[in-house]
């Protein structure tokens, strides 16, 4: 468990408010991991591939990523497909965290290889509950090291 705590969490989320609420509730769940935020899928991809503004910065391992779907430039599903399509990054766990509960969207994400799909509830109590449970889950889940 101590190993898993060290994982860096990358949060790809274009909405500042959502990003803040997610981070706050992860902290409330006792998550002490470093949380990096990118504002869209492209930036998340750059982070993973050490390109763009992350050029020259090797990605930390272990790494787990939380992706929103609707984002400008590159949406979460495209970024997911890119990362899962690349043998070097395929084993990074990706959790889709989005307001959409469209069954077709959920299906598409699992097809593209996401590890989990979570819908953000509007009701804040439920929202907190979901994010904090996700935090607890992240604490116990085994994440591949040295991808």
């Amino acid at each position: 468990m101590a190993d898993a705590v060290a994982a860096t969490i990358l949060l790809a989320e274009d909405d500042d408010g959502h990003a803040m609420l997610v981070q706050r509730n992860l902290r409330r769940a006792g998550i002490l991991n470093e949380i990096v935020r990118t504002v869209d899928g492209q930036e998340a991809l750059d982070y993973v591939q050490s390109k763009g503004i992350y050029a020259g910065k090797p990605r930390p391992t272990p790494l787990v990523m939380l992706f929103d779907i609707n984002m400008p430039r590159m949406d979460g599903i495209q970024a997911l497909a890119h990362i899962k399509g690349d043998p070097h990054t395929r084993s990074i766990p990706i959790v889709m965290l989005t307001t959409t509960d469209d069954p077709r969207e959920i299906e598409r994400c699992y097809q593209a290889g996401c590890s989990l799909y979570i819908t953000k509830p509007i009701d804040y109590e439920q929202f907190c509950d979901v994010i904090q449970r996700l935090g607890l889950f992240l604490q116990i889940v085994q994440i591949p090291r040295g991808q």
Partner: protein
Amino acid sequence: MLDHSIDTLVKELRGSPQHWSKCSEQTLIGEFTQILEVSASTTAENGAVKYAVALHDITERKRYEAQIAARASELLQKNFELERLSNSMKHAKDEAEQVKEQADNLNQQLSKVNDELIKKKEENEAFLYSVTHDLRSPLVNLQGFSQELLSVSDDMRKLFNEPECPPQIKKRGLMLLDEDMKGSINFIQAGVMRLSNIMDALLRLSRVGRVEYQLQTVDLNPIVQRIIDSMNSIITQKGARITSGPLPSTWGDPTALEQIFANLIGNALNYLDPNRPGVIEIGCLAEQRDGMPVCYVKDNGLGMSEQARTNLFRMFQRFHPGQAKGEGIGLNLVKRMVERHEGQIWAESTEGEGTAFFVALPNRMPA
């Protein structure tokens, strides 16, 4: 060989000897007409004139000739009639083809309009879906941060309660927190939750057209029984009595059928008259409608006015807003589901006496 009269023949013979000539003569013998052909020639020999005359009976020949002529003209007439008939048939055929072409055109237009309508409907549903999802995102913020504000005000309350806080400031501060701030936040949250419910309802509506139905023969009896069982606590709480008569099997999607009846029974329970014991009857009419069995859900509840009944299936219509929670979308949803089954739904109601909903659903696979 012209037929001459005998007189002409004689004249001819005189004028030009050595010439055979013919004539025919009709002789009436009793009722029988005999026709003779007279052929004659003259020769002058040694100053004497010799006449040679041959007679042929051509009665039969003439009769045949007449028959053939009559037959020919008859045939000609027939042929003429046939041609006329054939012309008018051709004309009729042309007309029929024209009509068929027009019908085909109309059909094509109709099917085009139909395709366009289906496309429009799908576009509308997809639009509704994406809009409601896009609207959800800001609601998460509104709801989340208003809640965060509440917890901030909890922290501030602790600050005001610190011993070093001057009593004047403490009093004023706590009042601002507990009255102004809390009240405002409550309004925001109630508004957001209402919006969120409406959007969920819209999403459910848009899904009605998108969910694929698994059509099969469905026995309604266990479905309705299951619904009644699941509503047991509210039935007991309302002191209502629900009876369910034998129901038919229908051709439809089990989930959609369950939603249809759950909505109708739920409505009946929600809008009972609190001043009398509620009675809800579920059953099947003896007579069919358009070949479909008709189920009903009948209550002795509040009922509704004629005006309300006309708008019954419209979206966001609520007639007893104080009586139950909801967005006024259930019956619209039910109607869409029934119509997707190619069934019919209608209601009868008397204000103060109760309401009956009738649902006609096909009982077999369409041919």
